[in-house]
């Protein structure tokens, strides 16, 4: 047991340099791209003197290293400064916006599971059958189509033509939130599921050929129980790994999809902040998204370990 616990803590310890690197890159990239927050804030009232005054008040006239140090120091104490655009503490903005994004990601995950688990297993059991062929074609399509295009098609068909779901916004109250997030979550889940379906299909085929499945069949238990009790749990481990690897793709997708569907989440906050050079907001959102990706990766590791006792009991084989 000890070794696996150590392993997990060493993974957690690895987070520190990763997060540090992400803050550094996002900080430097922002300052490398052309554009000036002072200019954005002043707009028509721009004069060089006023701009210099604003830069001084925001601390942008100080050396880069000094600015970075201030940001890190603030982040450590949970203070990300104040948004240039909204004139509110960044922490507050994050709290406002995180709920919608988390809900979107959660709903996407549910759709992914609901789509890919039955389809992946079906495609594996009926190899070469209709579902198998269809998911093969969809895999190519889903991978080739950008998220905003899928989103716009869904808006056109289910939102405007059929009128089944709202085409944008977030609504009021949890139920309404969920209703508003159905199309955006599908937009994310459809391309993501194609990857999961194919990977679940191939791992299921491998497991179906294993001797222990034959031994289980010879016990005389029904095939449906074989699939659930013996095949699925073994086949889903590798898919969890694929999920973790592709997670960054999903988070990138939320940024686009939140804008297409005008959802007040972290992604739309980020895009707005980048275009107005709202440095504190961009840095904070980048950090939050990075922490999220890293944490979910860690979580998939833990889940993988729970699914497969060989991974959680230590190195003994």
């Amino acid at each position, binding site marked *: 047991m000890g070794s696996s616990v150590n392993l997990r803590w060493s993974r957690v310890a690895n987070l520190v340099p990763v997060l540090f690197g992400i803050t550094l890159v996002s900080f430097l990239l922002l300052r490398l791209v052309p554009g000036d927050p002072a200019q954005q804030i002043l707009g028509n009232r721009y004069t060089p003197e006023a701009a210099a005054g604003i830069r001084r008040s925001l601390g942008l006239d100080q050396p880069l290293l000094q600015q970075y140090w201030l940001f890190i120091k603030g982040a450590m104490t949970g203070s990300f400064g104040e948004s240039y655009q909204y004139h509110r503490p960044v922490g507050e903005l994050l709290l406002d916006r995180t709920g919608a994004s988390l809900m979107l990601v959660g709903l996407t995950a549910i759709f992914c599971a609901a789509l890919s688990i039955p389809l992946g297993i079906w495609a594996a059991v009926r*190899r070469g059958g209709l579902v198998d062929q269809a998911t093969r074609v969809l895999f190519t399509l889903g991978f080739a189509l950008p998220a905003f295009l899928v989103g716009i098609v869904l808006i056109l068909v289910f939102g405007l033509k059929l009128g089944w779901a709202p085409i944008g916004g977030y609504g009021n109250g949890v139920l309404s939130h969920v209703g508003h997030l159905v199309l955006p979550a599908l937009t994310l889940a459809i391309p993501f599921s194609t990857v999961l379906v194919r990977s679940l299909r191939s791992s299921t085929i491998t497991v179906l050929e*294993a*001797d*222990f499945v*034959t*031994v*289980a*069949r*010879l*016990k*005389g*238990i*029904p*095939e449906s129980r074989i699939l659930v*009790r*013996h095949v699925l*749990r*073994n086949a889903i481990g590798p898919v969890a790994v694929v999920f973790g690897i592709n997670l960054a793709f999903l988070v990138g997708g939320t940024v686009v999809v939140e804008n297409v569907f005008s959802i007040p989440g972290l992604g739309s906050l980020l895009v707005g902040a980048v275009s107005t050079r709202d440095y504190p907001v961009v840095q904070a959102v980048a950090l939050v998204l990075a922490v999220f990706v890293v944490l979910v990766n860690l979580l998939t590791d833990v889940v993988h370990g729970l*699914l*497969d*006792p*060989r991974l959680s*009991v230590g190195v*003994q*084989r």
Partner: protein
Amino acid sequence: MTSHEPATDTLLLDVHDLRVAIPSDSGDVMAADGVSLQLRHGEVLGVVGETGSGKSVTCRALLGLRPTPQSTVSGTVAYPAHDVDDVLSLPPRRLRELWGRRVAMIPQNPMTSLNPVRRIGEQVAEAVSASGGPTGAAGAARVLELLHQVGLPAPETRLRDYPHQFSGGMLQRTVIAIAIAQKPDLIVADEPTTALDVLIQDQILALLLSLQRDLGTGLILVSHDLSVVSQVCDRVAVMYAGQIVELAETATLLESPRHPYTRALLGALPGAVPRDQELRVIPGSPPQLVGLGPTCRFAPRCELHEQACDTWPTSLRDVGPAHTSRCRRATAASLPSPTPRHQETQS
């Protein structure tokens, strides 16, 4: 083709002209090509052959298992005692019934025979409760009884373990416990000791045979080791290139083999040859099982090979009481010795 009648009225297993074709890029691989055999209740039949001779695929087909979903299986595999005319065309429901109650299999590698993510006890319990067996406390008691029966040490605690916490021998004991859970009439053991340490091999084989005797189960023991098979089996079938080339009572087969391949296998046994003589090896290697004709498949490696062998379609012929062989040159009286010319070139 086989003329000997079984001792009991109903046979346990009656296989006729079994063929298994596995599609491949270079054509259909005929892993079994016209296999016919019969098994009495409680009989132990050894199936011997080199790796790739089709013995594994053949024996799995006896249970209605296909090597791949694309393979075609033809012929008939009947279980007369259970009113099964042909296991190959049995509807899934009845096949499951046969699997659950009547037959069992012990695969070669115990490391892959158990589900890695389920506890040992759970997996044995599943075999106990399937087909309407006991569940709950009665089921748990039966699981313990089975694990005691197969000699698993400290089963009360070990049944909470996962397979990766078991040694190979303990895993194979567990697989045997699963196999005997419903007291089946037939166990197919596919090289059950090959993947184990030498010391453990004997223990597992002894366990399997004592359980077979106690339960009166028919046993088909697949092996590439003629010495193992000859010690424990009532009859032995020798397989070569997807066909049975010789089938006889064990003692008969050992004393007077009627097929040059069997004789060559016996000659390659360390115990069968005097210490001062070299072990004989069989030159060449077995053929690919694609596009083979009706003539003798052992001919290219055979020391008795004659030109006539290349045109003579083989079939299992009677060469003695309950003794059949595919060799053209085998007679009831004898199998010819290699020609002197063959001997001279060696000295």
